[in-house]
C-alpha cells in the first residue's frame, strides 16, 4: 500500500514533467472545444435535418470532450507510457524490487483517473465560461457514467500497453485509434452528417458508447443502458486481455 501511494505520487509528478503528454491529454481537448465552439456556437439546429441530437452543439460537445480526454489517455498516453517502461527496463527494475503488478497498474489507474478528472474540470470551466451550455441534468448519473467511462479507457490502455511491444508501435497504433475514434466516434463532426459506413465505424468504437453514456444524463435523456453495458463489456474484456498478456520485459 505504501509503495502504491509513493508510486502514484511519483507518477503524478512525472506526468506534470512530461509536457507532450500534458498537451495531448489536457490541452488538445480544450483546443477542440474552442475550435468547435467558435465554428458552431451553441444554437440547436434548425430545419429538416436534425444534428447534434437536436441540442446545441456545445451542449453536445461538453460531455463528448469528457470522453475525448479519457480516450486520449486510453489510446495514447497510457499505452505509450507502459510500453516505454517495458522497453527501457523500468518494469524489470520495479519487478526486481518486489513492486507488485497491482501497485504498478494501480498507480497508473489512479494517475489516469486524476488526469481524466482534471481535463474534464478544465473543459467544464472553459466551456461554461465561454459558451454557456446547459448544465448537467442528472449529475449523479453523469458521475457514474464518468467513472465507468474512465475505467473502461484505462483498461483499454492497459490492454494496448500489454500487447504493443515498443514505444514506437504504441505511438503508431495509439494515434491511429485516437484519430479514428475522435472523428468518427462522436467527438468530431455530428454523427448525423456522416455516411452510413462512417457511422458504422463510429459505432464500433468504444468512444461512441462512452459518449452516449455521458451525454444522456447531461442532456436530460434517459440513462443509456445499452451504452453502459457495452462500455462495461469492453472494460471486462480489455482488463482480461491485459492481465493475460501483461509482460514485465
Amino acid at each position: 500500500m505504501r509503495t502504491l501511494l509513493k508510486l502514484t505520487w511519483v507518477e503524478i509528478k512525472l506526468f506534470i514533467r512530461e509536457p507532450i503528454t500534458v498537451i495531448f491529454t489536457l490541452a488538445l481537448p480544450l483546443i477542440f472545444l474552442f475550435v468547435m465552439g467558435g465554428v458552431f456556437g451553441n444554437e440547436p439546429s434548425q430545419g429538416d435535418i436534425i444534428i447534434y441530437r437536436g441540442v446545441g452543439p456545445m451542449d453536445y460537445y461538453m460531455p463528448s470532450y469528457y470522453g475525448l480526454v479519457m480516450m486520449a489517455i486510453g489510446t495514447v498516453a497510457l499505452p505509450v507510457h507502459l510500453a516505454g517502461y517495458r522497453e527501457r527496463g523500468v518494469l524489470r527494475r520495479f519487478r526486481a524490487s518486489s513492486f507488485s503488478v497491482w501497485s504498478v497498474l494501480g498507480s497508473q489507474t489512479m494517475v489516469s483517473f486524476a488526469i481524466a478528472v482534471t481535463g474534464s474540470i478544465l473543459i467544464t470551466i472553459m466551456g461554461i465560461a465561454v459558451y454557456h451550455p446547459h448544465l448537467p441534468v442528472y449529475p449523479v448519473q453523469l458521475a457514474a457514467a464518468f467513472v465507468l467511462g474512465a475505467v473502461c479507457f484505462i483498461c483499454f490502455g492497459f490492454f494496448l500497453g500489454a500487447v504493443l511491444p515498443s514505444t514506437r508501435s504504441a505511438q503508431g497504433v495509439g494515434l491511429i485509434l485516437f484519430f479514428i475514434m475522435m472523428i468518427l466516434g462522436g467527438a468530431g463532426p455530428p454523427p448525423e452528417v456522416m455516411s452510413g459506413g462512417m457511422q458504422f465505424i463510429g459505432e464500433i468504437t468504444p468512444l461512441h458508447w462512452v459518449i452516449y453514456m455521458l451525454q444522456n444524463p447531461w442532456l436530460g435523456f434517459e440513462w443509456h443502458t445499452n451504452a453502459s453495458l457495452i462500455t462495461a463489456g469492453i472494460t471486462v474484456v480489455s482488463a482480461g486481455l491485459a492481465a493475460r498478456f501483461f509482460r514485465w520485459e
Partner: protein
Amino acid sequence: MPSIISVQNLRKTYGKTIAVNDISFEVEEGEIFGLLGPNGAGKTTTVECMQALRQPDSGDIRVLGLDPRTEAQALRRRIGSQLQESALPDRIKVWEALDMFASVAPEALDYHVLMDQWGIAEKRKASFSSLSGGQRQRLFIALALVNNPEVVFLDEMTTGLDPAARRVAWDLIRAIRDSGTTVVLVTHFMDEAENLCDRVAIVDRGSIVAADSPQGLIARHTSDVRVIFTTDKGDLDWLEKVPGVTRVTRTGPRVEVEGSGPVLALTAAALVEHGIIPADLRVEQPSLEDVFLKLTGHAAVD
C-alpha cells in the same frame, strides 16, 4: 558458516542456445561470492534465475531458504538487485527513486546516508536522464541496498565507474559484507574478483570450471612465478641450471625466468655471481588472470 544460497544442477536454454549448462554451487552467509567469466558465459542468466527474474529449465535453487520459482515476491523483498539492463523513468529525481524503492521494505535504510556513501548526494534533485553512466550505476547500487537486503546481487557493478570510484565501490561493498550482508558479484574484471571476492567461481560456456578463494585458485592452478630483467650480456645458459627454474625466455635484452619456490632469490644470487646486476629486476606473481587463461584457454574479454 551455513550456506545461504544453494544452486543445484541449474540449466537454462534460450531456443537452441545453452546459456547455463549445469551449474551447482553454494554461497555462505556473510561472504562476497563472485561469478567470474567472459561475456555470454551464463553468469547473468544464473543470477537472474536466483533473483526470480527468469525461470530455469531445470535444477533447484534456494536463496534464504526460499524457492525463487514459487516464493518470488517473498524472496525479492529480502534481496537487493543491481541489474545489468534496467532503467528508471527519465524524469524521476534521484531522491524520489530512492524514497520510492525504500517504501517496499519496512526496515529500509536511510537513503540520505546511501546518497552520501555512493557520492550522489549532490545529484539528489537531478533527473535520472541527466545522470552520467557512472552516476546511474552508483544510483542503481544504492537502490539495490536501500531495502536493507540480506543478500545483494551486483551484476557488473563497476561498469562505467572511473578507477577511483571503483576503489571506493570495493571498499563500500566490503563494509556491506562486514555488516553481515551476503554479496553475490557478477564480473568479468579479474582484478575486481581477485581484490574483492572471498570465493570465486570461474564460469565458462555455461559451466563452472573451478571454484575457491582467489588465493586458493592461484595456488592450485598456477605454480610458476616470473622473474624479469633486462641485460645485454650474451650467454645466459647457466640460468637454466639454477634450482627451481623451469624456463628461460629471451626477447632482445628482456629476459623472463619462470620457476617455482624461492626462484627469485636464487636467480638474483646467480646473476650477481655472474656479474650481472640489473636495475630493473622484478618478479611477477601469478594472478587470477593466469588461472583463468589456463582453465578456459581464452581471455575473459573477447
